[in-house]
Every structure is written in structure tokens, then in C-alpha cells.
């Protein structure tokens, strides 16, 4: 099957790649652009490990086609830190030990950032429901929620 030529912006950088029509955005990011920070957990949009933002909208990249990325601005986990400086969410995840195996962490960080970009002062319940689309099997979510609330507080105060 003939591949499509896609032009997009990923983490602020212009990119081009070729992908087959049935390839997902997740496949394109991982296999064409070698951005393996975004993970595949289920490929049916149930686990959130593949979370990215597309034009500032949080999506499961396994539910979007690579060809749909044409002309869009995509942000992945690889674009979260600014040079040497981790984003407060990344820093708080480390301080709170909000990760054990770490496979769900990129998805949670992208999803949490999308929340705080929209709603800088969420309640615990709002955080839990926003993140209900991200599965974690290791932590029981306690430290993740604490980290997000703490990062939110820091971002508001900074």
C-alpha cells in the first residue's frame, strides 16, 4: 500500500514522515519518528499509555491515524522538559514517588499537563476523574494524585 507523506510539528519541531494509511499516530510516533516515550498498552484507547496532545487536545494516539496528523501540532512526553529543567509535574512525580515501573508515567504526565493547562486548581476528585482514562497497575494512584495536586499548587504559586 502506498505510503502518505505527512508534515506536522512535534514538540515544537517541524517533522516529516511516511506512513501507511492504516498506521496509527502511535505507530508513526514510535516507529517513524523514533519517539518511543509514548507507549502502547492496549491499542483500543482503554489504558491511556499512548496519551499525547494534538493541537492542545488530549487524545489516545492509538485511536488516531498517522495521516490525521498532517498539519497538526503534537506534543509528547519528550517535549515536556525544557532543556535540563524538568516540568514541575515531572519533578513532583519523582519527589512523591508517583511511579514504580514507569510504563504509565508518560501518559499520566501528558494527561496531567493537559488538565492543569485547562484548570490550574483542580480538586482531588477532578484530578481523579480526569485521569480515569490512564491506567496504573503499580501505584494505586495515591501518589500520582498527590503529585499532580502538588504540581498544580507550585504552578499557581510560581
Amino acid at each position, binding site marked *: 500500500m502506498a505510503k502518505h507523506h505527512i508534515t506536522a510539528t512535534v514538540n515544537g519541531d517541524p517533522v516529516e514522515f511516511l506512513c501507511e494509511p492504516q498506521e496509527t499516530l502511535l505507530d508513526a510516533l514510535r516507529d517513524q519518528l523514533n519517539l518511543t*516515550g509514548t*507507549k502502547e498498552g492496549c491499542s483500543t484507547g482503554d489504558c491511556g499509555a499512548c496519551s499525547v496532545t494534538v493541537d492542545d487536545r488530549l487524545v489516545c494516539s492509538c485511536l488516531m491515524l498517522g495521516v490525521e496528523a498532517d498539519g497538526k501540532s503534537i506534543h509528547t512526553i519528550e517535549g515536556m522538559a525544557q532543556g535540563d529543567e524538568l516540568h514541575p509535574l515531572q519533578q513532583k512525580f519523582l*519527589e512523591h*514517588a508517583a511511579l514504580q515501573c514507569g510504563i504509565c508515567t508518560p501518559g499520566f504526565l501528558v494527561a496531567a499537563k493537559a488538565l492543569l493547562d485547562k484548570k490550574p486548581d483542580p480538586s482531588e476528585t477532578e484530578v481523579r476523574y480526569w485521569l480515569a482514562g490512564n491506567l*496504573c497497575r503499580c*501505584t*494505586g494512584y495515591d501518589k500520582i494524585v498527590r503529585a499532580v495536586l502538588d504540581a498544580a499548587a507550585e504552578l499557581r504559586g510560581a
Partner: protein
Amino acid sequence: MQEKVKDGQSSEFQVVGTRPLRPDGADKVTGRAKFGADFSLPGQLVGKVLRSPYPHARIKSIDASAALKLPGVKAVVCRDDFVEQSSEFIPAGEMMINYRDVVRNVMAREKVLYEGHPVAAVAATTAALAKEALRLIKVEYQVLPHVIDVVEAMRPDAPLLHEDMFTAGVEPAPKTPSNVAKRLEIGHGDIAAGFKQAELVIEREFTTKPVHQGYIEPHACVASVSEDGQADVWVSTQGHWVVRAHCARLLGWDIGKVRVTAAEIGGGFGGKTVVYLEPIALALSKKARRPVKMVMTREEVFKASGPTSGAHVRVKIGAKKDGRIVAAEAELKYQAGAFAGSPVQPGAMCAYAPYDIENVKVIGYDVVTNRPKVAAYRAPGGPISEFGVESVLDEIAAKLGIDPIELRLKNAAKQGTKAAYGPKFGPIGMVETLEAAKAHAHWRTPLGKHQGRGVASGFWFNIGGETSVSLSLNEDGTLSLTAGTPDIGGLRASLCMMAAEELGVPLDKIRVQIGDTGQLGYNFLTGGSRSTFSSGMATVEAARDVMKEACKRAAKLWELPDDAVEYNNGGVRPAGPNAGKHAPMTLKEIAGIAGKTGGPIVGYARINAAGAAPSLATHIADVEVDPETGKVSVIRYTAIQDAGRAIHPSYVEGQYQGGVAQGIGWALNEEYIYGDDGKLQNPGFLDYRVPVASDLPMIDTVIIEVPNPRHPYGVRGVGETPIVPPMAAIANAVANATGVRFTDLPMSPPRVLKALDEARAKGSAKL
């Protein structure tokens, strides 16, 4: 709220017990860390597995000729590409493995025994071509009747999975084969006499469903075999030396020819202690002469990797009016899936382990069924049997009018108690966890409408095992630590901390990695709550080795005997009568002259770590039951557990919280749902419902420390015990809220609602 209760002896550690950032953290929060599917080799092919559509069938023929003709297909493998194995148990490192079953589970030979059982595999240049090739493989099946349920499978007329399965442990040995692989019995005392003394006897039957470990990362590996037969595997695994042993065995290769590198692992919980894809990827790579990458889909994970057993459990406990238990019996029927080997043995040993009981008898059955072969899942066997026991104890407490914590205190096992499984306990923290539960604010907080509270305790062993560690002192005084037990959730932090504590150097001067099988002596896998205990013990030994050598080098320079120099505060100095004769040297200074004073300074430990000690827990759960929908919400949870010594408290808390979340899922929603056709109906996270963030409250933890005297820092493994109490804690809370005792898991809303309606009709419901 996270708390720590000390055992009364204050510990003066500089590093151990603090909460530094983990050394592998930056990579994990930036996406840099490489998990199983993140690794690729140039020229690699995509491997895919053809799986049985039937739960039970004989394989009459496999014809891959059309697939091989497809351009882009570079290799096809099936049963002929793996070495037939005898049925004797062979040591694979520390485990005794029946390789005859392993080779058949990896690739079916005579029969397929579950939907999803591998029958063939292909390697092709693209995933699309590999899938097309699978469609072209012709397999002729003779479909056979199947059996899914454990009790059904034990019936004499049940469809037979293995013609040569004669129940072991039965005297005289049965003459006809069956699906019961083994019968076992443990216990002590006189059970009949015990029940005669009892003033209250409660007997209940329980059922649990198979549940999956639910790791978010599917199985993944890349295998590459060179023309000279040297093979490399990159894989997400809990034990890469075990992977090496299994692959070498199944393929008939020398162990030394196979090198396995452990990727970062995205969850295992016991499910990644076995091989599925790796031998297949190696076989394909050898044939194709190119690297082969294989990644399971989520559907394949559910259909073809081991969940834990579903079971039928009967518990009968006899007590005196004052709450003292005088007799305890259980009968456990665990399903093993397609091949023998459910965790019924540890389940039997754990069932009554938290208690001091004079008369105990537990019988267990290991039963095969047409489901995927069961794999270990966090405290294998324990949560199931202890669910039954802790539920019946709750009923006994209620009937006798005794507080459920008091009942457990009355019967708690202590140091010197003869365990239900035989030996006497060393120091254990059962009483301490119960006292902490009793004293906790959670226990006293009033409940609201439709709410109930339950308490349950839990026990799991810990293991030690073969461990090798290497600790190099670099020329500038920094250190490189190489361990061999994959880090599933914070191990590297704890190892660094123990090394830093021993050596008196800052944490950031030690870089830790998990080495591959070519870099260290044998390491048994990460499991059995062993990695902090065993690799920690080995790290301490290696550090002491470095310190001793540092002393020796200084002694030579100072022309003193070796034992006249001591290690102190990150350096060495003359001791005793020679104190002050020479200025101390820092470890960095010693490192600088290592080359000239005898060569590199490297500490090694190669041990079979012994001295692991059990971890006990008591949990308190509050639930709220919706009377209209039957939904059970967990509104408050406190997990109290003995860690011996918490090296990094945050990661100990994390283990408690994670085990609790899995136990809650097991209690409330998770189950494998099969149709009458023997096919799995919910092989995905939408319908296999694990807890999500909105399902759970904050999970409070209390770390008790009753140090394990056999570990240099008193460590007990903590990873598995936390999953043991939740099912009973929640069932007890639901009984408290509703007046209905649930003996069948999961307590999903339709089941709860149905039971509530029935109880309401009888007038026995509380809501």
C-alpha cells in the same frame, strides 16, 4: 496519610530510611527509559504468532507452505523447531521446571489446550505481511469437548486434557487419568478432636475467578541469532537468567551462547517470570538470519499469558466462646489452566499462617482446565485461601460478639509459634500490625449511611535465592554498582542507598545498573519479594568487600597490618594504638592509587541469600454500598504491614498501595468471562475492569518495623503481602454494610444487587 511505627529501637542511619529521588527517575519521567518494545535492531523482522481458535483440539497437520511463499516472509516455526522435553523436573536455576509442559505451552505439539495457544509463528519484513502470512498457514484441527470450570473439570466424566495425568499424592495411585494433577495435604494436630472441643463451628464455601496480573506493558522482546550461534535477547522480564535457561533448554543450545538483557519492565507481578515469545523469537531469528521483534497485543496478553487461578475454597473453623480457635480446616481446589502447576501449595501453606492453631488440616487440589496456563500473581495462591479464612474469622467474631481485631490478637502467631505449615516462626509482626490497626484513627471513625467497615490480616513468605552483585570503585572515587534482579519499582534507589550507607559516600556518587546475563554470575528472578532483600544483602556484602580492600591498600602504604586500619566516615584511618599516626585517606584518594597498589578495587558478592522472613499485614477497609445499583465504593483504606526495615519508605508505601489496588480489583470487578464455547469474552481493559483513579480513595499506609535479624538492615520483602488482605477486608466491610456475606468474587454491582434483592425478600438485608 503515611505513617511509620518504629519497633522501639531507634535507628541511626544517614541514608537508609530517607526518601531521595530514584536514580532511574529522570529517564522514566522523560520517556527516555527503554522498555521491552522500545528497542529495535537494524534489519529486524516482525514476528507474529498463530494461535488456536479452539479451547481444546488435536492438531492433525500444519501446512505453512503458502505462507513461506509470500514475499517478505523470512521464516516460519512450529512445534518441530523446539526440542521435545522429558517430563522429569529439571532445575532451571532455583526452580524445578517440568519442561515438557513449558515447551508445549510455548508452542503446541499434539494438542491445543486453550483458545490462544500458539500453533505456529512467522517472521516477515512488516507487521502487515506477518499477519497475512498467518492467514496462509493451514492447520487441521480435530475439535474436542472442553472444560473451563474447576469443579466441572474434577468430575470423572470431564473432558480429559492429558491422557497421562494420574493424580499425584494419592495412595494408591489412581488407575485412570483425570484432570487432577495433584492432591496435597498439610497440617498438624488432631483435627477431629479439635472440632469436638469447639463451641462454635462455621463452615463456608467460596469461589474466586481467574484474574490477570494486568501489567500495562504487553510482553515484548527482540531476539538476534548470529551465524555462529551466539544469541542475544532484549526482553522485558522479571528474570533474565531464567529466560536464558528456558530458551537454551527449549532450543537445545548451550546456556553460555545466549545473552539476555533485561529492558525496563512495565509491570510483571509474577506474570513475567515465565517465557512466551522469547524462544519463538530466537527460533525465528535463527531461521531468518535476522533480528526478530515480537510484541503481544493486549488481546494476546489476556488470552495467552497466565492469569492466576480461579478456585473453589471450603473453610471450616471451630472456636471456643472466648474466641480461641481450636480447629481449622480448608479444602482448596485451584485451577492450573492447561498444564499442571497452580499455586495451591503455597495457598495451602498460607491459609492459616497468621495464626497459632493447635489443630490444622488443609487439603489442596491442582486441577487442569482449558484455559491459559496459570502464572504467578503476587503472593501466588495466598489471596484466595486467605480470603476464605479471613471471611470466616469475621463471621466467628460477629457471632461471638468479639471485636474482629481482638479475635485475631487472641490467636495471633508470634515468635516461636509453630506455623500452620510446620516450622516455628522467628520474630514476626502480626501482633504489631493488629495493635496498630486497633490504635489507628480509621478504626474509631464513625461510619455513615450504607457504609460498612471490614478488617482482615494477611501473610506471605519471602524468599532469598541466588544473587550476584559487582561494585566497582572508579578512579575518581565514584562507584558503579551492577546488580542482576530487574528493577520493577524502586530497587535501584534502595540498592544505592544501602551502598551509600555502608560506604559513607553521597548517593549521587553511585551509579547503579541492572547487568545482563553476561556481566554477572547467576541471579534468580525478581519475585517472591526478594530483590531488596537479596540484592540488598549482596550489595552490602560487596560494599564491605570494597571497604576491606580500601583498608588493605592504606595498610600497605602505611606499613601497618591489615587489621590495624579501619573504615570510617567515607575513608580509612589507622585504628587502635596506631590512631592518629597517619592522616585518614578518603575513598576517593584510595581510588586514585588503586592501580598502583594492586589493581582495580571491585567488591563482589555471589550468594544464595538466606534468612528471608515473612511479612504480615492487617488492613482496614470502609465501603459504601449503593442500594439501588449494588455498586460498592471503597471510601477509605488503611494498609498496615511489617517491612522489617523500610530502606526507602516511599517505595515501601508504594508496594502497600499497589497491592491494595490489585486486591480491590480482584474483590470488586476483575474476572475472566468465558462463553460456552470456551472463548474469552473480555480480553481488553474495557471489559476486564481494573481499578482506575476515580475508583479509589487515598490509600493510607502504616509501616511497622520488626527487623529481620538475618538481614544487615533488617529488611523483609514487602511486595506480595499487600494483595492478600483486601478481598476479605472488602467482603467483611460489605457484610457489615449490607448484612449479606459474599462468598463469590468478584462482588460486582449486578451480583451485589441480586444478593441484596434476595436478602431484602427474606428480610435480612441492612439496606
